[in-house]
């Protein structure tokens, strides 16, 4: 038999011939490189640079009855809605607003009903109508969120007004308090002096001032209890009740020896009440109306910039597109050119040709991946949290899986233009199903199968793990990508053998022929 070393040398030489040929061919076609890599990259780059994550500014008109008082406050209302709302007019007629929407002068009209007070008094909510000119479902949902936010804001404004009024009333409520405190002080002095007349006189003042205080509190109960009970640790109503109870206790027989103690407690109740009222007045109405607000932050302090988030996706997609297209084109070209005829007569095997082509595509794919990443680093300041080695390995897996798929697709393509079409369709499928724009988790489980038939899906997940979490990709992703590469590689090898190898007897037929000989 032939010397094994010589046989290996021959195999190596033929594989390297394909490696060199395919590499040179690619770099001799700069326009192809530009079309396949730079073109999509520039499109995505422009998209990344030009995309504004903030919702668009909505030209807003407020439609309010002239006597509602809202018309005067519409500018204030628009400011409160945030930068998204740009007030372009305050109108009194819905027809005018509709005309502005139709002409494109306004995007949103906020229509305030005319009978707010009557409706609310009737126990129903008054309806603020939001009209808009958006047809894009996404933008419509943004407007709906905006509308909800606008209504919430109006409600808050109303509540804040009520609370501010309540705080103003709280000063009036507390007006009898100094009289009560003075009376308590005089009663304590009278007890010490054992002056019964002075004690009774002061007690009368105390009772009178506490009654007045109780009357005012009762009048403002809705505000004080609705707001105060949710915000103050000791409800002001409880301190007042306690003070009233102690004042009554002083009038009961048999408490003579306890009067000093009761008065001290009463004095404390009045001080608490005074502190509660002061606290209530000091708190901003906005805080009282909206005591909670939400703040979110990424776990582990991860805060991914909008542009950075898409970089793993762009790198995976473009590397996949390139490796897949070059692989498919390379095989189709051999076929259309007729080179396979020559291969079939030569000692070349399918495995040798495929090995050379794989190697060429790996080198080209890694170079392009490196160039794209470098561009991201310099243009956007992208810096992965994890290891660059793992990053490179993830790109390598994308290249291997993608070119295997490309070789398989080339089996279906009869011409180079068909191969390019298949590559473009794969790119389109990848944009929707690989997790590039929307997470694969938002797809139905049955449809997610499509996602895992796309090499970029593995690449995006792996690169996101490495770049943003700084951790290794999950074992499922790594094994999935490796398995995928093996399966498409095996299919590619079978296809390549069929193409490159001439008609042959099966092993069994050969054995039979030899036996016959």
């Amino acid at each position, binding site marked *: *038999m*032939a*010397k094994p070393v*010589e*046989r290996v*040398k*021959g195999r190596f*030489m*033929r594989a*390297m*011939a394909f490696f*060199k*040929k395919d590499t*040179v*061919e690619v770099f*001799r*076609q700069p326009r192809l490189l530009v079309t396949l890599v730079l073109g999509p990259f520039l499109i995505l780059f422009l998209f990344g640079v030009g995309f504004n994550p903030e919702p668009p500014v909505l030209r807003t008109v407020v439609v309010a009855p002239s006597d509602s008082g809202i018309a005067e406050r519409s500018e204030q209302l628009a400011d409160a809605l945030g930068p998204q709302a740009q007030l372009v007019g305050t109108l009194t007629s819905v027809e005018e607003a509709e005309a502005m929407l139709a002409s494109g002068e306004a995007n949103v009209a906020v229509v305030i009903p005319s009978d707010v007070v009557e409706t609310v008094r009737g126990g129903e909510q008054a309806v603020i109508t939001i009209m808009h000119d958006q047809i894009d479902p996404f933008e419509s949902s943004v407007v709906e969120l905006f509308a909800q936010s606008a209504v919430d804001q109006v409600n808050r404004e109303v509540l804040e007004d009520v609370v501010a009024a309540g705080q103003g009333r709280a000063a009036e409520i507390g007006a009898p308090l100094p009289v009560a405190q003075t009376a308590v002080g005089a009663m304590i002095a009278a007890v010490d002096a054992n002056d019964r007349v002075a004690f009774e006189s002061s007690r009368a003042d105390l009772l009178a001032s506490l009654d007045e205080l109780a009357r005012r509190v009762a009048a403002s109960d809705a505000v004080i209890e609705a707001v105060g009970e949710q915000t103050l640790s000791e409800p002001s109503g409880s301190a007042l009740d306690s003070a009233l109870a102690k004042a009554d206790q002083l009038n009961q027989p048999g408490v003579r020896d306890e009067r000093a103690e009761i008065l001290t407690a009463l004095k404390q109740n009045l001080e608490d009440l005074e502190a509660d009222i002061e606290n209530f007045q000091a708190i901003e109405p906005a805080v009282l109306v909206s005591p909670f607000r939400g703040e979110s932050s990424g776990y582990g302090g991860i805060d991914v910039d909008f542009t950075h988030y898409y970089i793993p996706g762009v790198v995976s997609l473009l590397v996949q597109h390139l490796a897949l297209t070059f692989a498919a084109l390379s095989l189709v070209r051999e076929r259309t*050119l*007729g*080179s396979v*005829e*020559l*291969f*079939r*007569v*030569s*000692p*070349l*095997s399918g495995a040798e040709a495929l090995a050379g082509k794989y190697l060429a595509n790996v080198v080209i794919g890694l170079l392009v991946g490196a160039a794209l990443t470098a561009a991201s680093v310099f243009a956007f300041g992208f810096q992965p949290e994890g290891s660059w080695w793992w990053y490179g390995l993830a790109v390598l897996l994308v290249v291997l899986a993608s070119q295997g798929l490309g070789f398989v697709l080339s089996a279906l393509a009869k011409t180079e233009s068909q191969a390019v079409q298949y590559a473009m369709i794969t790119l389109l499928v990848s944009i929707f199903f690989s997790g590039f724009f929307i997470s694969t988790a938002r797809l139905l489980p049955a449809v997610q199968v499509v996602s895992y038939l796309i090499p970029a899906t593995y690449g995006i997940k792996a690169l996101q793990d490495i770049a943003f979490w700084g951790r290794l990709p999950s074992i499922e992703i790594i094994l999935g990508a490796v398995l995928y590469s093996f399966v498409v590689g095996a299919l590619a090898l079978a296809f390549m053998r069929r193409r490159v190898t*001439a*008609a*042959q*007897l099966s092993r069994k*037929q*050969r054995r039979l*022929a*030899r036996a016959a*000989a």
Partner: protein
Amino acid sequence: MGDINEGPVPEAERSETESPVVIDHSQPRAVNPEVDPIAPLGMDVLDEAAAFPAGETESVAGDVVTTIDERPQETVTPTDSAVWARGLSKEFEPGVGVFDLDLDIPKGSIFGFIGPSGSGKTSTIRLLTGIIAADSGDLLVLGKSPLEFDRIARSYLGYMPQLSVLYPELTLRQNLNFAASLFSVRWRGRRRRVREMLDFVDLLSARHRLLRNASGGMQRRLALAATLIHEPELLFLDEPTAGIDPVLRRKFWDRFIDLKEQGRTIFVTTQYVGEAAYCDKVGVLSRGRLIAIDTPEGLRRQAMGGEVLDVRFESALTSEQISRLVEAARATRWEARGPGEYRLVVEDAGDVAADLSQWATANSLVVESVEPFQPPFDDVFVELVTRLDAGEESDG
């Protein structure tokens, strides 16, 4: 022969003449003819190549070109026939294909395959090289069925397809290097070998040119160089001279003859029927069937029904004199080409020429000249094909 007058034409018989090529075993062979030790169908063992070490071959310039030795260590050689086929058929669609081919091409010979476009020449080459499998028939190429070719057997073959199959984006030199790698030509000495082949096809100065910028003729020349780069023992050349100038065509054929003299076998198809003259044996293919196979001279005889003689008399002959002339020359056909000028188809032109002089003197006629005529192969080819068509029509 235009409006030829038919005489009693004897039935043409397929020549059984053996190839005149004598294999000179003292010449170096292209590649050491070691093949698979398990020779199919019990082929005999020859030992004439044992003097040449495996993986080495002598190039045109006398340099030794080495290929990586992937061949077996045992020495077993096939039969004397480089190609042997019986009843070989391949039908692509009803009535289209090649049918019942019988071939026996000795080693060290040039076999020309001519036929109109679409007659099945390329399909035959694809069958012989194992690119496609036959539907029926027996075939041995270098003693082995092409369906059993392994990489070792293929290393003995060279194939030049009809169309350029090399790479437009590579330079001429890179293309040649690629072909060299396909056939495992060692790195050592390869540069010299590549230069030598480029020089042979007059492309050395254009070696850095991209193939896509090369002319059609240059591409054919490069294809030939790529076919010869590993010095194959059996070459299949599919219209190698198509689209190249006559001077280079002549150079190609000189090279083919050199290769033949080195002991290599060449199976060549051509659209230039005149090139059949360079071949040791020629097969004429029409509609997938081999209608004639013979030496070039044998084909002429087959086509014309014998040898052709042009006779010119001092004056025009009467009808009676012409009848007696045809009888005296034992001509199977005759044609009047002008006043006193006659073209005769005879069995043996040499014998008849001598006899005619005596016959003229005896009949008081003056013969100005008697010359054998070599009909061009274009005419031979047209005659053969026309005759086949006429035969088929009468059968129909």
